[in-house]
């Protein structure tokens, strides 16, 4: 008897919470279709997905960090510094290695290493230094940003054009018509979802974010798991940059500005709790795609003054989350 009464209410709530971002996404797609017949074109959709892939990959890392109760504000600056160093490494290796994939691969390796190191640094300061994640990553945000400005001498670091030509296909080509960035994004998303749902690490992230003490008493090495989330975040930033560099071929002090906000927004729109304890990777993917679509839809029409783009964006973000809350009060 009690079950009979309780069940429908519960099922309903869960459905709404789960489907919320999907509903918002569907509504946005509908809006896009009515605004422009080219919206559903293959080109437009791959464009949107491909360019959402940077933020998307970073946001998947952020999902783990946030689920375990942390925060990383430094991802945008980190992306800039990784891009800058990758470009410098590649340019510097050309005389010895010549133009070709060798240089590109060496640059990629350097990028991934640097991402891991940067993430480790954040993670160690937070776990061993016991400083609030907000403060540590606010600090490193400034440090990384300065570093890239310094390396670029206030200007832009540009990849040698011939190497850039070798590297370009990594962004612009694809497999079976699906651009590589989308493929990588999808792989990272699937991997992330599996790690979150189906590994002890994912479970431990949620436990730590929900109640650190409980996790500790369950003999989870809280510091190590936390540290790992930041290393993962750093590495995924690097992966995103591997796709970013062939698109822009340069890095400057303005690279990646405000990416952190966008990544966090994607995570939260996707249904992950900002205070930790519950996270879902697929939600993040939906959240990031929603953000990408908003920008795209704004470009499909000329009705809204471009000055009001931000307002439109803001309204959609709030609405997307409102949909998830739909039945909370009932």
């Amino acid at each position: 008897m009690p079950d009979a009464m309780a069940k429908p209410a519960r099922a309903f709530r869960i459905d709404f919470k789960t489907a919320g971002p999907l509903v918002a996404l569907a509504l946005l797609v509908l809006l896009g279709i009515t605004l422009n017949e080219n919206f559903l074109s293959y080109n437009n959709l791959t464009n949107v997905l491909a360019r959402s892939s940077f933020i998307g990959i970073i946001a998947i890392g952020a999902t783990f960090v946030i689920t375990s109760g942390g925060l990383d504000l430094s991802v945008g600056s980190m992306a800039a510094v990784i891009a800058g160093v990758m470009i410098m490494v590649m340019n510097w290796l050309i005389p010895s290695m010549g133009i070709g994939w060798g240089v590109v691969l060496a640059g990629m390796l350097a990028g991934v290493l640097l991402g891991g190191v940067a993430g480790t640094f954040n993670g160690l300061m937070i776990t061993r230094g016991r400083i609030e994640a907000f403060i540590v990553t606010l600090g490193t945000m400034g440090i990384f940003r300065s570093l890239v400005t310094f390396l670029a001498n206030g200007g832009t670091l540009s990849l040698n054009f011939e190497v850039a030509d070798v590297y370009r296909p990594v962004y612009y080509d694809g497999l079976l018509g699906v651009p590589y960035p989308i493929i990588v994004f999808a792989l990272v998303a699937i991997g992330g979802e599996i790690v979150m749902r189906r590994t002890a690490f994912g479970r431990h992230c949620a436990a730590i974010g929900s109640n650190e003490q409980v996790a500790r008493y369950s003999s989870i090495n809280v510091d190590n798991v936390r540290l790992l989330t930041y290393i993962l975040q750093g590495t995924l930033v690097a992966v995103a940059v591997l796709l970013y560099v062939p698109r822009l071929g340069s890095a400057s002090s303005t690279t990646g500005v405000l990416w952190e906000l966008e990544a966090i927004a994607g995570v939260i729109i996707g249904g992950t709790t900002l205070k930790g304890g519950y996270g879902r990777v697929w939600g993040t993917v939906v959240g990031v795609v929603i953000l990408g679509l908003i920008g795209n839809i704004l470009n499909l029409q000329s009705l809204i003054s471009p000055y009001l783009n931000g307002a439109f964006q803001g309204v959609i973000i709030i609405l997307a989350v409102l949909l998830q809350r739909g039945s909370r009060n009932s």
Partner: protein
Amino acid sequence: MSSAEGTPASAILSAHRISKSFGDIPVLFSVDFDVKPGEVHAIIGENGAGKSTLIKILSGIEEPTSGSISLDGQTVVLPPNGAAEALGIVLIHQEQNLAEHLTVADSIFLGRELKIFGFLDVREMRKRARAVMETLHVYVDPDARISTLSVADKQMVEIAKAISRDARVLIMDEPTAVLSVGETETLFEQIRRLTDRGVAVIFISHKLDEIMQLAARVTVLRDGQLIATVGTEALTPDSIAQMMVGRELSNLFPPKIEPDVDAPVVLGVRNLVAKGVKDISFDLRRGEILGFAGLIGSGRTAVAEAVVGLHHLNGGEITLDGKPVNFTRVAQSVDAGLAYMTKDRKGKGLLLNMGLRPNLTLLTLQKHLKAGFLDTASETRALERAVRRFDIRARDASVAVGRLSGGNQQKLMLGKTMESEPDIIIMDEPTRGIDVGTKQQIYHIIAALAAEGKSIIVISSEMQEVIGLAHRVVVMREGRLAGMLEGAEITESEIMRYAAGIKQSEHNERINA
């Protein structure tokens, strides 16, 4: 003075001359303790005596200031943070220790997940979780989130979590504090099953009959000192109580003073329907103590929470002094002289990171305003009063409440509720985790309040408490009133019969008519 007569050779886990201080406050003084395979060794003592601290040391959660631990006769330094589970030492904490966002199955296997090919074997974990819960006769969905469970169900999850581990030494810190007779019985069955397999069990409880029933030996602590370790067969509940408190404990319950027959009904509830409550009606008269009994999850808490405005009413009517009321916020019921004390002191009762003073006055801050500003001196006076009245023992008032012993937290919460000087008090498990000595005091306080003309509802899973205190008893079952007992009808067997659904009552209809 100590008489730890256990032969160390046969003990699995033993402590030698353990002392512990938190900061400059000593809590344990040179305590010896041991537990043997297949034995249940109980620890008893007043609130704040150091029981929880001792078993935290025995499981590596806390480090002793001095003294040593040996496992299988070998002196060891236990690894911190519950890592001693790997050595077979499993602890159920006094305060519930579950991550609210996780599911039941997640929680039971947290920290030792089952894997296939490196990935979580979710199906197997769910299956086993359900199986363990079934051995405890708890039928919650393994995929239910902890945050949706009742306090008692959470406790059962904790127990399931502990007994599903490969324990050699199972330590339980007041596992039965929120359990009713039925659940306690199931728990004891499981404990006996484990001891038959040679598991050593350390058991802490303030319920002396449980100790008598379960334990082979009892260690008594007082103020951090080891008083004695003795075999249970040589003891009676009275003699244990005397050892604990250091004085004679006659008459746990004060004599019942029946309210006047024509005492007016102060709280009337008719056909109440709310979350967890199907349909219930009852009256509370002035000067009356009304007991609420029932199995866990029978909806007693839900009734109380609906009455004070914590939950939305889906139907029915509530009257206060004959006037219909519909509280939508707790503040309204408090203002109307109706106060509710939750049983979930950690989740709903106390701010664990704050000191005693702000916790005590949180409900009644308005009383401590002077010209619109908080009058700390007045708050301090209130705290001093409450400390005296409820015998709250804390190092100093600035210590975070989360660091108080469980019983002292409970007493503080009592003090907090009483601060609002309510005419009607609903107490949910009022003596949860409180030692017999203080229990007696509290029972006397409750009886005195009733004698003064206050009306009290006592929701309790401790049968003796309901029987010893209440003038009438409401027995609930599945969100409905199963029976209403009065006078001589109030017996354990009668309550059980209604609670288990063996007997149905016409009282419900009678009141409705």
